[in-house]
């Protein structure tokens, strides 16, 4: 089994494999995945900020775990993601549920895990962030995106992370989202000030 499989922006091909089957392992606590390799959580946060700030048309795809106030703390986390998207200057397209909607989906306003490529193509999205999407559906969508689009995928996962995203954090909570926002703001200030 190859240990060198890289999870890169596509289009990778007709039916790209699941990265887990190619030997990419999920990060442990305090770690993250960048393009199939394990890195520190902090390094991944900076990579995410760089990717988002250099994107032409970044979008956040919040899923049901974030869109519905189903338990205490979710509304605060949703607001933090909204603040992060605003700091980046990114758009937001929700994934409100997982029902297949093809061919009736309106890709301008909604994304669906069974055919996420339609929304990415329609809106010409070059970097996207999955957040609040149940892991099974995120993984289904991430593989389809890698197979058929050139979009760079980032997953902010509250559980164990996603091998099929180009960058994946695990155990993402309110503090982690706010930390990422602070890094984005800091980098924006550096860019505005002409620094590196």
């Amino acid at each position, binding site marked *: 089994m190859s240990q060198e499989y890289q999870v890169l922006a596509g289009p990778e091909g007709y039916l790209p494999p*699941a990265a887990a089957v190619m030997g990419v392992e999920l990060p442990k606590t305090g770690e993250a995945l960048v393009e199939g390799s394990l890195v520190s959580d902090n390094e991944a946060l900076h990579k995410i900020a760089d990717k988002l700030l250099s994107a032409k048309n970044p979008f956040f795809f919040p899923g049901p775990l974030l869109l519905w106030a189903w338990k205490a703390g979710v509304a605060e986390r949703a607001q933090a993601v909204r603040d992060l998207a605003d700091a980046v200057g990114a758009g937001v397209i929700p994934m409100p549920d997982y029902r297949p909607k093809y061919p009736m989906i309106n890709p301008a306003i909604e994304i669906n895990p069974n055919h996420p490529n339609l929304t990415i193509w329609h809106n010409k999205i070059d970097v996207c962030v999955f957040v609040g999407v*149940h892991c099974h559906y995120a993984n289904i969508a991430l593989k389809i995106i890698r197979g058929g689009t050139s979009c760079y995928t980032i997953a902010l996962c509250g559980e164990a992370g996603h091998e099929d995203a180009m960058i994946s954090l695990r155990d993402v909570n309110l503090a982690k989202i706010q930390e990422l926002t602070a890094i984005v703001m800091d980098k924006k200030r550096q860019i505005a000030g002409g620094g590196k």
Partner: protein
Amino acid sequence: MQKVVSPEHLFFEAPREQVFITGSEAVREAVRRANVDMAISYPITPQSESMHLVGDIFKEGYIREYFRGENEFAVMSAVAGASMGGVRVFTATGGPGTLRAFELFSTWSGARLPIVCAFMTRGVNSPLTIQPDTIEMSYLLDTGMIMLHAENAQDLYDYLLKAFPIAEQTEVHIPVGVFADGFFVTHTRENVKVAPVDIKLPPYNAYSAPVPVMDMENVPFRQMRDPFVMKSNYVSYAAHASWQQEVMAAAERARPSISSYLGGLLEVENADADILIITSGTAVSIAREAVAQAKQEGLNVGLVKIKCIRPFPTEEIRALTKNAKAVIVPEFNRVGWLAKEIKSIIPDNDKVVGAPRVFGGMTMPTQSILAEIRRCQA
């Protein structure tokens, strides 16, 4: 009545008491400590006694719900419904019962249900046989479930308890089948070390599942009644393909926890020997005795016990067999599914000897393994 403890405490730290019990009773003792919400039964020899005993502990208050289904297909459907509803479920079957319910095992995996099922294996044949045989494992290899194969009642107790936290991890969340050779394990008594009865696993947390708790508006059920599932177009095919890939990926993600809880997907004795015996289930016990007899004859033979059949310990077996001159694979079935698995992953597979192979209820004398060892040594 019981205190919730961490899986690590229950498995590795709590003091254990030795009891002299059958494999069926080992199932009862595992389920007693597994914090199971619901168990559903249907009789089939040689499994019947285990779910009967699980019913006894329901009466004692260790399980919240227990009933008998109409048949095996109904039972496996009912446990699927319960698992989709967000509770921890357990059931058991074997032989023809396994085949009667067969469609559901792939459904469990596809729907990401962390069901734990004990399979007490027996022959599938006409004329009807109730004898020990592992052929049903061959049929289940590609259903997407994790497959653990117990050598004895101790393994059966341990693997069943450990199956729950392995199955229920968010990134895994697929069924685990724990297999024991019918009669040899289920109907014989042996010493089994069990944890105190007053501790149990933490409850299942459905809110960390990779799929939402069942809702008729959500896939897979929504998918069934939407035209999407029947569409003949690339978008539909790609979604289904990615779904199946994700189920296979889930099994891969189980490797670390299986290794951690079971001490590896396999275990080895005398790994550097020229002749290796690789097997699983009760054939391991017989092979161990054959290895001891071979040693008395001055023959140097190693033994590999495969604990986990899915995911398969591919890299481990490739490394172990690299320098071996011969690999003997004894099996309790007529098709030699384990020999085929091993042959499919090593380059010089002409050194794999798929023998001895017994079935129809026949026992496997140690002499039959010794004969293969002597043949390979010659």
